[in-house]
């Protein structure tokens, strides 16, 4: 970046904010045009034999490159834009507001970076993968739309705009999940929607309730409005649950372990690394953090810890590396959630917690992204590099993970939740165990499937992601963590969970190798499985049920009129023959009636 570019960014940064989501959106438009041409050519020109053909023509290489680079403007904005640009666009939606503050800057940077690496990864992905999961027009379209949503929701700060991008990301994400088209993918996609759509609705209802008391359509008007609202606790709970689905809150997490493994690797990376954070951002933006304490915050804290530890426990039983990672995401998000819950319990803690949450989020995003990419990006001994982000997650000193954990523990020290620090330590053990399990599964899978070696470019990109997750942040976030060499001072405190986890993991592996230990089989998605069956049963019942014929209420013509008609006709036959007599009766009758005054 030269000075000129920086000047431009500084001058018009307000308008440039829109560029971040607009770039992928425009590219999506290009893909549409390309896709339309191809599909039309297929369906008409080769009428009849189109079934044998590839579903669409080869997309142009330039377009793929452009697509992979679509997050670049966002990345540039995150790093170079003038301090706090903002922009108001009145005619759009209910009044559109764009802001780049510290929070969004960090998140934008991480998100853009992860999408950029994953995008490049995806663009090279086709070289090694089997046909079904290979990126095609549909994949790229969903990719770009999800990217648009993800970038937009970070920058957009009015209610409708934020929610729009959020929804866009959610629905486009579906396309990524089901991309491979396998039955598993479809099931995962269905569950993704079954969880995501109610999530959207919870968010919508929370937003509506809050907005009806708020003074402006900007998001920042919501927290005070919720705080003052008579049902503020309830509204906050709605939003907590709504965004919680995206963030993998305990009991609302079920879609994660199903959806992440089936998506193509780069998609899993962004799903787990970047998109999952949207829920978090939603919480931070709308909940009355730092303003008021909420009565259910302790419950939320408990839930967070259940996710943190339970996620790890269930994750250990998984056999598939990506599923393990997904549960790890649940567990990690649980840890982050606990910080928010602490902020909701004690508003005074929040100013200190806020930067830590951001730091932890960035750390997890990049590390998890790197791990996912590593699943198919590395091979053989190169896989050992994955231990770095893996242990970083566990909080190994000198990594970003350590920085985040140290900062977190410092900030949470005053939280009035019994045994919090200890439980977080237990969660860290769990994380370590999960990482051991992940590495183990990765090796197992690689041995079993004997897949071809990945292209060099993929390896390079994975390494890049690992690098980014390791080195970028300690320095950038030194002021948050308060130390340049994170974890050095608290080495013991940080090391015991890691060590314990490693030892436990080692023992378990050893036992398992001798056949003494078999992991209990908890299917991926745990609780959803029975729920899914129940739902399917209900749906079948409803569709088969004979319709209750409300509809016949007004159909009187064909029903009783015909019957009455036959009866009337019979009676009329008799009347016709008696006209004279009836006449006499009538004449006398009238005279009598009139006479009886």
């Amino acid at each position: 970046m030269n000075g000129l570019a920086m000047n431009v960014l500084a001058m018009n940064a307000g308008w440039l904010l829109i560029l971040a989501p607009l770039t992928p959106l425009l590219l999506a438009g290009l893909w549409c045009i390309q896709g339309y041409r191809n599909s039309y050519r297929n369906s008409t020109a080769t009428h009849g034999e189109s079934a044998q053909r590839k579903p669409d023509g080869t997309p142009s290489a330039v377009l793929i490159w452009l697509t992979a680079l679509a997050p670049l403007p966002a990345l540039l904005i995150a790093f170079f834009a003038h301090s706090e640009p903002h922009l108001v666009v009145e005619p759009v939606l209910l009044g559109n507001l764009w802001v780049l503050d510290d929070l969004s800057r960090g998140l934008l940077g991480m998100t853009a970076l992860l999408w950029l690496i994953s995008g490049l990864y995806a663009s090279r992905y086709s070289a090694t993968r089997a046909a079904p999961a290979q990126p095609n027009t549909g994949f790229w379209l969903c990719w770009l739309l999800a990217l648009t949503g993800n970038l937009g929701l970070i920058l957009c700060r009015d209610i409708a705009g934020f929610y729009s991008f959020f929804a866009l990301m959610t629905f486009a994400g579906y396309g990524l999940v089901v991309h491979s088209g396998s039955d598993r993918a479809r099931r995962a996609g269905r569950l993704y929607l079954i969880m995501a759509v109610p999530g959207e609705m919870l968010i919508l209802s929370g937003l509506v309730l809050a907005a009806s008391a708020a003074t402006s359509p900007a998001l920042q008007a919501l927290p005070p409005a919720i705080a003052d609202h008579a049902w503020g606790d309830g509204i906050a709970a709605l939003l907590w649950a709504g965004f919680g689905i995206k963030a993998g809150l305990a009991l609302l997490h079920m879609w994660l372990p199903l959806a992440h493994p089936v998506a193509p690797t780069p998609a899993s990376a962004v799903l787990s690394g970047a998109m999952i954070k949207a829920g978090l951002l939603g919480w931070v933006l709308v909940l009355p953090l730092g303003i008021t304490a909420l009565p259910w915050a302790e419950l939320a804290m408990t839930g967070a810890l259940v996710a943190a530890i339970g996620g790890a426990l269930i994750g250990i039983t998984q056999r598939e590396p990506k599923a393990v990672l997904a549960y790890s995401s649940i567990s990690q998000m649980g840890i982050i959630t606990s910080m928010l819950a602490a902020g909701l319990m004690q508003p005074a803690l929040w100013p200190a917690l806020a930067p830590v949450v951001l730091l932890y989020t960035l750390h997890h995003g990049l590390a998890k992204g790197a791990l996912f990419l590593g699943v198919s990006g590395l091979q053989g001994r190169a896989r050992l590099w994955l231990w770095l982000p893996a242990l970083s997650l566990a909080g190994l000193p000198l990594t970003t993970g350590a920085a985040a954990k140290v900062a977190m523990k410092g900030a949470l020290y005053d939280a009035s939740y019994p045994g919090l620090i200890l439980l977080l330590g237990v969660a860290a053990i769990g994380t370590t165990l999960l990482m051991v399990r992940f590495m183990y599964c990765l090796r197992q899978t690689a041995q079993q499937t004997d897949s071809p070696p990945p292209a060099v470019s993929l390896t390079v990109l994975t390494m890049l992601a690992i690098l980014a997750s390791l080195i970028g942040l300690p320095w950038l976030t030194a002021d948050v963590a308060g130390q340049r060499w994170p974890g050095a001072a608290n080495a013991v405190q940080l090391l015991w969970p890691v060590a314990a986890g490693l030892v436990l993991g080692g023992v378990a592996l050893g036992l398992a190798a001798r056949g003494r230990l078999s992991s209990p089989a908890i299917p991926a998605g745990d609780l959803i499985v029975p729920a899914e069956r129940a739902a399917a049963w209900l749906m079948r019942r409803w569709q088969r049920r004979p319709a209750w014929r409300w509809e016949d209420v007004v159909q009187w013509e064909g029903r009783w009129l015909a019957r009455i008609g036959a009866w009337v006709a019979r009676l009329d036959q008799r009347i016709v023959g008696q006209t004279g007599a009836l006449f006499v009766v009538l004449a006398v009758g009238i005279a009598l009636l009139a006479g009886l005054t």
Partner: protein
Amino acid sequence: MTGVSAALHTPYIWPHVWLILLPLLAALVSTGLNRSRTHFPALLPWGQGLLLLCWNALTLWLWLGGVEGGVNETTTRITFAPLVGPTLVWTLLTDGPALIMALLTTWIGTATLVHTGLRPDAASRPSAPAAFWPLAWLLMATLNLIWLGADLLTLYIGVEALGLLAVAMIGLNNTPGAVDAALRYLFATLLGSLAYLVGAGLLFGHYGTLELATLAGQVSANGATAAGFGLMLAGLALKAAVFPLHGWLPAAHASALLPVSVLHAALVIKASVFVMLRHWLAFGPAFADTALPLLVGALGAVAILWGSIMALQQTRLKLLIAWSTIAQTGYLLVGFPLLLQGDAALQQLVLQGILYQMVAHGLAKAALFMTAGHLVTATGSDRIDQLTGTGRHLPLTLLTLGLAGVSLMGMPPSAGFVAKWLLASGAIGSGQVIWLVVLLAGGLLSATYILRLLRQAFREGPEQDVFQHPSRVEKMTAFLLALMTLLLGLMAIPLLSLITLPGGGIAP
């Protein structure tokens, strides 16, 4: 001989008398020209056409005058001074109701004659015997006599003559069914007339006058009046085919020649009801507190339901239309009890409603019968099944059927709707919501049978290739009648403004 001294000081008199004289003249002309038509074939249609024109001009002029300056209720007294015995005063009354009915007569009469063709041998249509034209003109004259008649004697003469003419016309058709129906009708109408006659005698014996206006001023509820009134009402009810005395009507309508059915359904039935109305306005108020109004209204209500349900059972179009007439007459009767309730404004409203219903039904029914005729021409039968495909081949006929049907259903925008609105407003205004329910239910029932026809017309079935088209004149005449129901539904004031006072001046 006979000295006739009319009150010539009102220039408004003679036009009314001409309403009667002109059709009489026309009857003579058509008889005469009929005889000479071998020599002067063009004379008959031209002569009849000219008479029709004059007739229309006359009623139009009366109408416009009425709209402009309000109807002057004009009583025309024509005094007969025979050589022996006391003098006799013959009273004609021209008021709003009379004028409206005269207008209706002109319209439907003209349409029927044009539709039939103005001469006996007009080609390509179900031919009518030569006697039809003079009889039709006589019928019009009689009708106008009834509209204008203001004393029981005149009305008796009118009603009686009308009945005989109608029987004769129904008997014109050369089928056993028609003759049977005519005979049956004859006995019914004779019985009715007798009852009317006795009733009139009774009233005269009691009050010493037959003039309705005078009677209305003197009437009180007593046994003699009740008996006389009852006899007259029952007699007229028999002639009007009021339920349950409707037995003669379906066969008569269905078997008669087409133009006869048209005239009969649209006008002849109305005449009896109109006379009933005149009597009701004169004597009814005396019996407002008895169960009589309820009885009449109830008969009307049952007629609506009965007729509609029976119409729904029919497979022949003409029979369906005939049953519909019975039902539609019921609407008129439902208005009767309402005439005795509430204030003058309300009574005026109801009277307007009844008369508008007569107009609406007359026009719609005429149009409907004509379309039935077209169907017979086109397919050789008036079975309702035969309507399949008419939508494509006879669009104008279908449109006519639709428009007329809408008016019969009482759906807006149509004259039938206006009538229903007025009657229903009267029902609501006088607090008798039961009649409102009857009116609405009746509308729905009539919709069911009308839509049965339309549904058949929209059915896409096996194509009938041979369609003989009715002539353009025929189609246009029917269509214009149907169009009039529409126009009168959109502009009701010109006709309604003719009725400005309750009872048209007859009521006390």
